[in-house]
């Protein structure tokens, strides 16, 4: 009898890998969607079992050696509090966006490409999950390529609703490849000097051999990695690929990407900076704190201002995403428990809020065929559930109390205040939320206090299949704002593990 429990980590990657390829065979109509939903649902269930297994284990770590090869030679999947949490987010949001995707894809992707869409979609999830679960640096790169290539394809699938999707995808491809090559170079240098690809071994050797950390090779590797990861997680000013990609991708893809792709980029950064290089080297020896905190702060302010000048709401949310990633980056750049915990918490909270908001915009597009500020006029009355979800998500971005965004903000501000002389950063966090008020409120005013354009089509509420996943995400973002004891336990544990493992 095959033991599911013992093989959980590998199943989470192999099921979507094989299942994704098989999707091509499912034909037309609703079948590819149903198959993808089945796959992602199964994966989500497995990640839930995995997080339970991690918390049940004594060490808090589940290690799995592929093919029973010892980790020095083979690939190790290593799951702890941090990545089991991220896995759940990726798989959960992946599952919900797959359910949501049906209507969005019917509208925005030609029917004869449905099976390809879902095949690529599931493979993208496979890549993202794989990056998150693996403990092997080269394996990270391989899976990164799987996820990147599939995501470029997903963005390009929007070409039938907007030609811009093709150039957006190309731009994403070029910048993404630059980032990936930087990461590959960084990993290569690290492998050269440590002679291993296992993350834990890399860390051990970097810190056991005297003088190795000061070597030029390690410094160059560090620089390559920080820049490469910066591109992947859309750190300002390396975010250039993101706004267009999110704007022109099909709605479901925007929702999936905003909630998972950049988050996995942040997770990789955690692994490289904290687990491999260690807090002491990354944040004390190197001036990473200042570089990242400055980039993040500038990002929060600049993209906030840019967002409030957009009339295309998807583009507005895209800029807002860069700003919100700024919060996440700012949090871990502080390298203290509150900061890192805030950062990890915001990975979840932002995934819920932004995923839900992109879904709401997708529903608006489904009915109105456009998503600019004019198109939402008077929609508060016509699509009450969609717009209410959007507003609740917006309140989360603002960091309104009793939404998840408040929890992240609480930790981040505390993290800033905990570092001596870093309190102005707390001001940046708070000013960023004011910018969120401004750009969210333009939508509120249009939706609730302005009359619809005379030429606007008379629309009704979005289909239930769109509303349900949207409201699960938004509802969760409110729930985790009212009762964040569970998430804060996980995030603080993860933060302590990251900081203590130096």
């Amino acid at each position: 009898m095959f033991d599911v429990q013992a093989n959980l980590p590998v199943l989470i990657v192999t099921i979507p890998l094989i299942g994704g390829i098989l999707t091509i065979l499912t034909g037309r109509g609703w079948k590819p969607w149903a198959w993808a939903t089945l796959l992602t649902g199964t994966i989500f269930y497995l990640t839930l079992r995995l997080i339970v297994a991690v918390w049940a284990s004594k060490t808090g770590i589940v290690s799995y050696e592929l093919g029973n090869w010892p980790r020095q030679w083979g690939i190790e999947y290593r799951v702890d509090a941090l990545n089991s949490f991220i896995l759940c987010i990726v798989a959960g949001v992946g599952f919900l966006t797959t359910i949501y995707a049906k209507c969005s894809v019917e509208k925005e992707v030609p029917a004869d490409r449905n099976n390809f869409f879902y095949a690529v979609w599931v493979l993208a999830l496979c890549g993202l999950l794989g990056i998150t679960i693996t403990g092997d640096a080269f394996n990270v790169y391989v899976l990164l390529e799987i996820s990147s290539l599939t995501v470029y394809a997903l963005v390009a699938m929007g070409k039938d609703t907007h030609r811009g999707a093709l150039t957006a995808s190309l731009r994403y491809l070029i910048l993404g490849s630059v980032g990936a090559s930087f990461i590959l170079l960084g990993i290569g240098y690290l492998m050269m000097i440590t002679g291993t690809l296992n993350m834990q071994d890399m860390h051990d050797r970097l810190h056991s051999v005297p003088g190795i950390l000061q070597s030029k090779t390690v410094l160059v590797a560090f620089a390559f990695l920080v820049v490469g990861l910066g591109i992947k997680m859309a750190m300002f000013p390396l975010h250039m690929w993101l706004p267009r990609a999110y704007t022109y991708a099909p709605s479901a893809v925007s929702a999936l990407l905003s909630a998972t792709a950049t988050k996995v980029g942040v997770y990789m950064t955690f692994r490289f900076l904290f687990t491999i290089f260690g807090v002491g080297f990354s944040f004390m020896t190197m001036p990473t704190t200042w570089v990242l905190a400055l980039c993040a702060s500038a990002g929060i302010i600049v993209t906030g201002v840019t967002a409030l000048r957009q009339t295309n709401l998807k583009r507005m949310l895209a800029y807002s995403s860069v700003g919100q990633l700024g919060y996440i980056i700012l949090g871990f750049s502080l390298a203290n428990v509150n900061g890192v915990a805030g950062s990890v918490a915001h990975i979840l909270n932002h995934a819920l809020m932004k995923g839900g908001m992109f879904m709401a915009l997708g529903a608006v597009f489904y009915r109105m065929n456009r998503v600019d500020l004019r198109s939402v006029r008077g929609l508060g009355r016509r699509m009450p559930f969609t717009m209410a979800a959007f507003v609740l998500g917006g309140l989360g971005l603002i960091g309104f109390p009793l939404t998840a965004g408040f929890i992240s903000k609480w930790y981040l501000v505390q993290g800033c205040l905990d570092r001596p002389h870093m309190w102005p950063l707390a001001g940046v966090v708070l000013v960023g939320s004011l910018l969120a008020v401004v750009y969210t409120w333009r939508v509120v005013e249009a939706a609730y206090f302005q009359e619809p354009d005379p030429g606007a089509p008379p629309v009704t509420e979005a289909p239930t299949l769109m509303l349900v996943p949207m409201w699960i995400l938004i509802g969760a973002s409110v729930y985790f704002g009212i009762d964040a004891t569970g998430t804060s336990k996980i995030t603080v544990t993860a933060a302590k593990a990251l900081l203590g493992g130096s």
Partner: protein
Amino acid sequence: MHFELSPPLLAIYIPLIGAFLIALAGRWPNVREAITLITAGVLLYVVAGLAPRVLADDFWLAFARSQPLRLAQVLPGVYLELKVEPLGMLFALIASSLWILNSLYSIGYMRGNKEHHQTRFYVCFALAISSVMGLAFAGNLFTLFVFYELLTLTTYPLVAHKGTAEALRSARTYLGILVTTSVCFLLAGIIATWGITHDLAFKPGGVFTQALASGALTGPGLGVLFILYMYGIGKAALMPVHRWLPAAMVAPTPVSALLHAVAVVKAGVFTVVKVIVYTFGPLTLVKYGQGEWLIWIAGATILIASLIALFQDNLKRRLAYSTVSQLSYVIIAAALMSPISIMAATLHIAAHAFGKITLFFAAGSIYTAAHKTEISQLDGIGRKMPITMAAFTIGALSMIGLPPTAGFISKWYMLSAAWETDYHFVVGVIILSTLLNAAYFLPIIYRAFFRAPAQDHHHHAQSSADGVFGDETHPASASHHADHGHADHGEAPWPAVVALSCTALATVVFFFYSDLAIDLAHQLQKGLLR
């Protein structure tokens, strides 16, 4: 999660359920309004039922021992919790009792002016009251902040109600200032407090004593926190963050009356007093010599706002600036940091409420009956609307602080507190501002009763609106309406008249029977002296 229905929780739920039912009954206006009135009545009953417990002799003993009512644990150690204490009790009593009269008034006003979106109006109103109840009974700073923000959010649709470009612009100012101050300063202060003390609970004497004794917090640090809190509470309209209040006057008058003369602004000064008493502790602040600046700023706010009020021709704007000045009375009294001054601050929260709501009711009635918004249009209106203007006079007397009105009581305590603490500046401010109050209220009364109605009415209204006050908040149609069908107006619809008569009466009654308010203020004082 805690689902036991104890009275403070009920006080939050009742308006919430009311809002839900109002939304359901939106199609039948009479049912809808009946639900509003019944909800308000039930709420007052529940809130009043709490009073005896708070007034009990051993209240503070029980307060120190009893656990707060915990609704949710939001973060480890940070709870959403409720706890009843005298100050909040008084605030909840005022808000819930005036809600009944205000609902009655709203019916007359909203129907008289044929306002649109009336269901949304009543729903948001009930939601705002629910937030006020949560604010009044908040058991810690976090809960207070949550309801403070919810109050901003639920009143926003009421300010933006008209949906015109101007209403939206004013509503933006409203939201912008209130959210900016609360997020940038108040929230920062609360998070810093949590970082320093890991204790957000309200306790008489404050939470910082230990941190100060151990050196974790220094005197200047305490001062910085105090600034963060005082300017974080934008709803208290301390200058220069008062701009949102005149902006909010664009809302329908019942909103201005209950929310922007009583509930929202009082939520501001209530929070100021609450933070001074329960988070900082007056004694701590005095001991470390922090917070004296507040007296000067509040004094300046009183005088400057009164001076601005003097030059406003738009009646509601004049009342708004009068409110700004009256709010700083509460702040200046609290800033004196003596037991009797805290009592004065508490009483003024109550005393100002009755007078100011009467004034707004009168202003709204004049608008409904005569479509007049400017003071220069009011010549001789006392003859056509005798009840309204009589009530207005009582309200104005209360603002000035003359007996036999409510305003006299609190001013009396305030002056004695100022003498007792030897702040002659405060005595001077109070006297000067009393004169200013008289200077901007008495001419209105004089006009209304002793001047003959203007003959060339239309021309007069037009020139004043176009000339000096062209950008005021009254709708452009107001002056056009003046001659069409309103030339021979009488009083406003009867619910409005009844409501404003009741509040005017209450203003006078408060002078003779202010026992409940004084008892509650005494109880608060006892807590301070323990």
